[in-house]
């Protein structure tokens, strides 16, 4: 019973707290809040379970798909060069759709438009493998999503979602992740919620998963109806989170508790 009081307590404390953006100098990756052993799991490519998906993605990269019988490699060549920085710049604006798309949606756009293949299902093994492989090529690079005039309304929508109270617990993301990061919630340390390592291997899932999966978990956690995979609310929120984490280093594929 004690754990419930912690959640209810957090909600009432938060009512009087301010929601301010974390200053650049205090921005820290979820990596810094993890224990030694979990960090060791992430640091060693031969022990990081996320690498299983990266290797799978590497072989999918060369596989011809769809009516066009094209492989990613046929247009994009060696991912180690051509995909460098791509994950660090997503979500990015898609002119045809007139809105930002995240990395998984970009991969599916290529599949449907260029390979004439059916889109890969959200959180499917192949889509996770490809996004893990592409994201891996940005490891070590700083996050830099471009927010121009076209992107601004979507960034604002994402920011509004981040600050909006939701769910039966009536909590906003900012209340935990801007105001109470570093403090504990039922045995876990609250991180700042920077998506530096996605797609990542989450010990709770015992599998690799996307940022959207994690966001949906959080929404369930505050007892809110989670948005569907690919929903504009989630992509706008991803955009805001990546912008909020601008300058931080990509760690994909990360490991998190």
């Amino acid at each position: 019973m004690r754990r419930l009081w912690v959640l209810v307590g957090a909600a009432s404390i938060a009512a009087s707290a301010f929601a301010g953006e974390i200053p650049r100098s205090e921005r820290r990756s979820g990596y810094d809040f993890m224990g030694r052993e979990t960090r060791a799991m992430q640091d060693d490519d031969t022990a990081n379970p996320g690498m299983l998906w990266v290797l799978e993605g590497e072989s999918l990269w060369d596989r011809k798909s769809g009516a066009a019988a094209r492989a990613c490699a046929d247009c994009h060549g060696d991912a180690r060069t051509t995909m460098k920085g791509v994950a660090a710049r997503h979500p990015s604006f898609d002119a045809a759709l007139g809105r930002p798309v995240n990395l998984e949606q970009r991969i599916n756009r290529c599949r449907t438009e260029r390979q004439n293949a059916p889109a890969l299902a959200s959180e499917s093994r192949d889509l996770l493998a490809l996004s893990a492989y592409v994201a891996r090529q940005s490891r070590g690079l700083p996050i830099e999503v471009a927010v121009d005039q076209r992107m601004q309304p979507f960034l604002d929508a994402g920011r509004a979602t981040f600050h909006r109270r939701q769910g039966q617990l009536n909590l906003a993301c900012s209340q935990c992740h801007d105001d109470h990061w570093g403090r504990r919630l039922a045995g876990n340390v609250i991180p700042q919620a920077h998506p530096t390592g996605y797609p990542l291997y989450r010990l709770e899932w015992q599998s690799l998963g996307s940022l959207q999966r994690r966001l949906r978990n959080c929404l369930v956690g505050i007892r809110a109806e989670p948005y569907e995979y690919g929903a504009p609310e989630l992509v706008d929120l991803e955009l805001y989170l990546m912008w909020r984490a601008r300058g931080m280093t990509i760690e994909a594929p990360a490991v998190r508790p």
Partner: protein
Amino acid sequence: MASALINVPARARRGDVIEIKTLISHVMETGYRRSQLGARLPRDIITLFVCTYNGTEVFRAELHPAIAANPFIVFSTVATESGTLAFHWTGDNGFSVTESARITVE
């Protein structure tokens, strides 16, 4: 899923004790979980891991459901001669994967 990730040093001196790391993708379904409809999800795990060095068994691990998904096993062996290290995983539902790595021992 890429079946397995093996980490074996490519070269070693005769007599050195080398560390080998293996990681294989497998859900390791415990047999204790239930689906959303209440039906018990049947056990599906890797039960045995064997390493042979030029055909001779040098290490074995018997796994139970308490081993985490995507089993990670680290062990050591003495670098005796150049050749092939073979890794065999077997388990429920006819699961069987074999990977190998070459090592040069000087």
